[in-house]
Structures are given as structure tokens and as C-alpha cells.
């Protein structure tokens, strides 16, 4: 499990991971004082979608065409909600939508330990829930740390709720939604990947 956690954290520097990390960052920044809630919801939804995909239970195919546009509109609506309403329900809903879209669009870089999980999940999906959670906990470590810092140091929580940080989260969230809507989110990943490849 610890190997999976480390492999997840190491994957943070790979462009393939950013398809799910960027929406997570947007949610964590836009979540105001509710870093724990939005991180928990985003992580739980993303882990569920990832596990369904690894286990072969995912019924919705790939993110492309009309589904990408639909997801983009949903993300834009969620961004509007969290900007207009400072409420736990809207923040949680936005985090869930972002987790769903991010995990659906995500194509993981499959290292040796995640490979074991994905290969094993074919025949024993329930035995590999823990592995999926451990890998994604490693990948989501930055958000988890932000949430933990907010609990451990309330003064940090106050700082993360200022308008600049929340505004940055909103703008990032809206950009993600817009890129999905015009089916360019994968082009962003493409450009990031190109710049980090020889």
C-alpha cells in the first residue's frame, strides 16, 4: 500500500496525472473554508470512478464529443454555483462534479504498482479497492495537506478563504469547464505533455 501511495505522489509530476489534478486544485482553492469537505467529496467521487474503470464496471465509455461538452457545461454551472453561493451543499456538489469529470477524463500513467492494481482488478475488483484508494491518496496529497493544514492551523484556514485564493480557484474551475465545453481540455494536456517530453 505504501508503494502505491508513493507511486501516486510521484505521478504528480507526469502530465497524464494533471487531467485529474487540475480540477482538484480548482476545487481545493475555490472551496473557501471547506477544504476538508471539498477534498473529501472530490477524492471519494474520483476514487469511485477510477475503481469502476479499473474493474471494468464503467458504463460510460470515453470522454469525447457530446459527453465532453456536457461535462464542461456541468462544470461551468458548478463554478457559477460556488462563486454565487457560499454554501456547503454547493461547494460539495461542485467538488463532486469536478471529481467525476476529472476521473473520467483521466488516463493514468500505469507504473508497476498501479499496474498490479489494474491487472488484478479485472478478476478481483473488490480486493483492489484499497490499492486504488492508496494510489489516488498519494496523487491527491497536495489537496489533503491543504485540508489538514486548515484543521491543524485555523489561522491558515482563514488565509485560504481570502478573495484572491477563492477567486483563483473559481477562475481555474471556469477555465477547466470552458476547455471541456469547447472540447479542448485534452489539448491542454497534450500541450503540457509535449512540453515535458523530449
Amino acid at each position, binding site marked *: 500500500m505504501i508503494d502505491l501511495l508513493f507511486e501516486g505522489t510521484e505521478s504528480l509530476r*507526469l502530465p497524464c496525472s494533471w487531467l485529474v489534478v487540475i480540477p482538484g486544485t480548482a476545487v481545493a482553492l475555490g472551496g473557501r473554508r471547506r477544504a476538508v469537505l471539498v477534498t473529501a467529496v472530490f477524492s471519494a467521487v474520483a476514487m469511485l470512478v477510477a475503481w469502476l474503470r479499473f474493474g471494468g464496471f464503467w458504463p460510460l465509455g470515453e470522454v469525447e464529443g457530446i459527453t465532453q461538452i456536457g461535462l464542461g457545461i456541468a462544470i461551468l454551472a458548478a463554478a457559477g454555483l460556488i462563486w454565487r453561493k457560499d454554501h456547503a451543499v454547493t461547494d460539495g456538489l461542485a467538488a463532486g462534479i469536478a471529481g467525476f469529470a476529472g476521473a473520467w477524463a483521466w488516463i493514468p500513467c500505469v507504473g508497476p504498482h498501479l499496474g498490479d492494481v489494474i491487472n488484478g482488478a479485472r478478476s478481483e475488483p473488490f480486493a483492489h479497492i484499497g490499492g486504488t484508494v492508496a494510489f489516488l491518496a498519494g496523487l491527491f496529497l497536495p489537496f489533503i495537506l491543504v485540508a*489538514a493544514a486548515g484543521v491543524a492551523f485555523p489561522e491558515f484556514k482563514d488565509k485560504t478563504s481570502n478573495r484572491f485564493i477563492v477567486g483563483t480557484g473559481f477562475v481555474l474551475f471556469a477555465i477547466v469547464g470552458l476547455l471541456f465545453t469547447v472540447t479542448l481540455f485534452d489539448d491542454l494536456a497534450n500541450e503540457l505533455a*509535449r512540453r515535458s517530453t*523530449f
Partner: protein
Amino acid sequence: MASRIFAGIILFVGVGILAVVGLGSSDDADTDVVASADTEAALAQTAPAEGAVGDAPEATTTTEAVEAFPEPENYGPRLDLVNLDGWRNTDNDELSDFDGQVLIVEMWTFGCFNCQNRIPHTQALYAELQDENFEIIGVHAAEFDFEKDIPSIERAMVDLGVTWPVALDTEKENFRAWQEGGRRFWPRTYVVDQNGDIRFDHIGEGDYEELGDTVRYLLANPPEPTTAS
């Protein structure tokens, strides 16, 4: 108070993990391959040195290893490779031209970090078994648009030391057809036996020893020819 202590512990452990992963990355030769702008340097780290291929498994041709290895499971007949944008490193132009051989069919793309990490292991196996009734078929299925550029693919093949035949599946038609449902990943490695049946299927890095043993087993114990083959 308890929640603050718990959160503090999470912070402490999390920062520790980030620090260890960060430090580990700077020392890890493999991890520099993707980020490096210097292809030559990347190659020096990725390509196998003569006689020593990174941490690739050592060539083991011992009959004991083959005898101890259980008969690989049969996953059924392979699909064909269709509507390709051509082949490289071979004069053949269809997968059926390789019928009768033990094949490794590997779905990969040159920008994929984990695909790059597999290459030294594949090179080691190719060096060991190249003269046998064995071939490796790379199926290059671009993940991103910049990986669809054929001159870039060709340059990457040279840079990464991919000397085996490569089928160019630019639009991922075969990548999708070979991988069921939503379980589509890079890299994915299959072993196809002399009858055209899939006998090994692995997603991601790893399982190099089992891959090599499967190929050696099939070379030493070819299946009974079927009427379809």
C-alpha cells in the same frame, strides 16, 4: 483538539512523503527521461548499456526456468491490426505476415513515461531471443496529438532504441479494438502464441520476468497447430 492533532499527523506524514518522493526523483535516472530536453542524455539513461540493461532482468535461457513455468493461460485468438498508417522496421505490412511466430504485441506511445520505462526490458528480451522464432510488434497508438506526427515517432524510435517492427496506429483504432470496454491503458503488453492465441496480457510496467518466461515457454513448448492457423 483531537482533530487538530490528527490533522497535524497527516501534515507531518504528507510532507515527509512529498520530501521523500521529491528527493527520490532527483536521484532516479529513469525519472529524468521525460523531463529532460536533452535527448542524448535521456537516451544515455534509457538505452541499455552493452551487457547491462539498467535493472532489466538478466537473460535466462535455462531449461529449468521453462520447465518450472506453468502453461500460460489462453485468452483466445488475437485480433488483426487494421487501417494502419504504415509499418516501420519491417518490410511486412500485415500482422498475419508474422503468423507462426511467438509475438510480443505492445501498445505504446513515445511520450508515455511508463512505455519508455518498459523499453530497456523489451530490448533485453529482444537481444536474447531475436534469433528464435520470435518477434516483437510495437503498436504505436498516440495518446496526444503531438505523438501522431510520424517524423517525431521515427525520431523517437531511433532515440529510444526501438529496433523491432512498429505498426502505426495513429487513430487508435486497434488500440481500442484490442482493449475491451473502458479498460484502455498505455502500455499494454500481449504475448501471442504460434497459433495466434493471446497467452499473456499485462497493463503498465512490471511483470518482466513472467513476460520473458511466457515467451520462453511458448518457444520451448509450441502449442499443437490448430486448423485455423
